[in-house]
């Protein structure tokens, strides 16, 4: 079926010429045959420029390169062009400009082969997980949309297995898009283990892996900027998270990367307003999972007020309330995570406490997280980067400076959701230390109470 040797590499992608990595003669041949089509890199839409890869329109995202130079070469494109415009927003993936177009495959489309027995996973789903799994199978069959609203620790990954199984049997191409590279690194090996006969490509900034019509692509959302009409099933993990929620170009990238008829599945513990409204208006089919897989309630965050907390943080000192909390953990031999608002805070606190810290720019972050998971460290200080997606079996959590603006409702709910993840140790302590009580903190507590109530009701009904 895949008669064309280039088809598996380029089907469903939108790439720069140097990403195609073809010799000039092959490249020209494919263009002439119409197997590759050229798409202008930057398009003028009314008064704006729009990058055709990342779809940004912000004027500040575009730069100019003057073409009038003393180093004029014989085959300069055309002397009338004064300057070329390029996109600075996605330049890390290679430059897109008015002179550097993108290419899409237009030849015979490659499809992953159907797999009869894709999974070796023999685990069992809880009733609630099963409900979500069936809804997902339904969505894949009908090529429709679905929101799975499941609390942290509900076992989201396992819920996907039944749907994935159906998809791979039908030879569908599936993508799991998640906001963070850490999550890709955690998820991909797990899926490889449980689905050994399928091809998986894990893509994030800096990987060497390539997707040659893989059955399953596990990728950070940014990687989807290289795709176009590629996937039959798109699973967007943590839709409410930064940067997906924040960056308008990423939803556009998701919309572009799926085929015309596709199933779209959103996963989150904390849907934002737009999804909540769509769900209430029955525009978006929704499955709610209020209970963790082990059936125990979510740990309720404790609120603890500390005066002049932010002054303390700035000086790198700690108020007694917090040192007491830490000492209690230490004497009980409990491992813990400390969340702080900024990188500077993390650095200062790490100096006073002698505990390692991670943040978005730390070079050894993978290693630190790995070592903490393997119990090499008793504690870890972190910024919001570890708020979601990562699972440490049995830990306590404190947020120091929970009234800072980076800790919105969703962030606090997610952070609280790091505690009590394992069935052997379902209770974890979650404490928010703050100076001024914020709406986000109150809402996060209310959310937990509400979900626990829903969970209790469900348990009663099912008994």
């Amino acid at each position, binding site marked *: 079926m895949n008669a064309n040797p280039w088809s598996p590499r380029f089907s469903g992608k939108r790439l720069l010429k140097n990403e195609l990595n073809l010799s000039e003669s092959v490249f020209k041949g494919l263009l002439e045959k119409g197997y590759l089509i050229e798409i202008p890199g930057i398009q003028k839409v009314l008064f704006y420029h729009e990058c055709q890869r990342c779809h940004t329109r912000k004027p500040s995202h575009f730069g100019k390169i*003057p073409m009038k130079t003393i*180093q004029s070469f014989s085959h300069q494109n055309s002397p009338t062009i004064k300057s070329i415009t390029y996109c600075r927003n996605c330049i890390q993936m290679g430059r897109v400009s008015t002179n550097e177009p993108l290419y899409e495959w237009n030849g015979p489309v490659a499809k992953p082969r159907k797999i009869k027995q894709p999974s070796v996973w023999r685990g069992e789903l809880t009733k609630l997980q099963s409900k979500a799994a069936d809804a997902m199978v339904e969505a894949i069959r009908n090529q429709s949309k679905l929101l799975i609203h499941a609390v942290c620790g509900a076992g989201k990954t396992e819920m996907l297995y039944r749907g994935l199984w159906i998809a791979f049997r039908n030879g569908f191409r599936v993508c799991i898009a998640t906001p963070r590279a850490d999550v890709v690194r955690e998820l991909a090996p797990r899926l490889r283990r449980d689905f050994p006969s399928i091809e998986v490509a894990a893509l994030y900034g800096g990987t060497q892996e390539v997707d040659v019509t893989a059955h399953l692509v596990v990728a950070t959302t940014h990687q989807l900027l290289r795709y176009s009409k590629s996937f039959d099933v798109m699973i967007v993990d943590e839709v409410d998270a930064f940067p997906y929620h924040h960056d308008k170009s990423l939803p556009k990238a998701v919309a572009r990367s799926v085929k015309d008829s596709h199933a779209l599945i959103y996963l989150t513990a904390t849907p934002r307003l737009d999804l909540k409204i769509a769900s209430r208006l029955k525009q978006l089919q929704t499955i709610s999972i209020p209970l963790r897989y082990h059936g125990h309630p979510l740990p309720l965050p404790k609120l603890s007020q500390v005066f002049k907390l932010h002054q303390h943080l700035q000086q790198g000192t700690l108020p007694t309330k917090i040192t007491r909390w830490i000492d209690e953990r230490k004497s009980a031999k409990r491992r813990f995570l400390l969340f702080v608002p900024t990188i500077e805070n993390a650095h200062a606190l790490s100096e006073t406490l002698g505990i390692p810290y991670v943040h978005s720019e730390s070079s050894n972050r993978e290693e630190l997280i790995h070592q903490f998971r393997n119990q090499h460290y008793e504690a870890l200080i972190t910024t919001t980067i570890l708020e979601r997606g990562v699972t440490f079996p049995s830990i306590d959590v404190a947020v120091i400076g929970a009234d800072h603006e980076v800790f919105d409702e969703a962030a606090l709910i997610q952070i609280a959701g790091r505690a009590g993840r394992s069935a052997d140790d379902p209770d974890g302590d979650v404490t928010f230390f703050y100076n001024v009580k914020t709406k986000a903190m109150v809402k996060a507590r209310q959310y937990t109470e509400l979900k626990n109530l829903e969970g209790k009701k469900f348990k009663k009904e099912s008994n």
Partner: protein
Amino acid sequence: MHCKICMHSIEKDTTWSTLFDFRERTLCPSCNEQLETIQEPTCEKCMKQTEEKLCSDCKFWEQYWGKDPLDRNVSVYTYNEYMKETMARFKYRGDYEIVHAWKDSFQQTFKEHFPKESHLLPVPLAESRFHERGFNQAEALANLVDQPLFAGMIRIGQEKQSKKSKWERLLASNPFELTETPPENIVIIDDLFTTGSTVRFAAQLMKKAGAKRVSSLTLVRS
């Protein structure tokens, strides 16, 4: 206004003192802080940060090639981690706009060290590299300073400097060729001064062709 390097907004609060300030800002405070200007003590010839009067690179050249054709080098910034990253984006990703972030300090440095009647020679780029990148980074820097350019030199070699070792660079043959007679006062412009061999090869040719003073202004001394 947005920072040319990190692209974050640098809008200031409007007060009476900022209301009539029309200067264009191209750097945010955080990026500005990370740009590290070269501090004394330095090699008096090439501004390498060292305790010695003459650094090993300069000594080596004199030992190996004889009289140094370059009168002196002036650089603006050190090659710290931040600069390495920024440089990589500027040169290898081809993010031209970044050049504007260095405008003020580059202009300032030129004024401080060089006479007004100097001609600038941006170090030419091999044709293949120019086509890959779409611009010559040295010329982009030269355009920041309002001075006449001298365009009578071409590059024949194709090899990347950054892929070579220090020894290979110092012992390589001259990759440049002159196509016009150079003016008397020349300031060679380049982005990076590492061992100084590129700049010195260019200087050598020009001195031979009759230039009187040949110095260089480079953005970074590594």
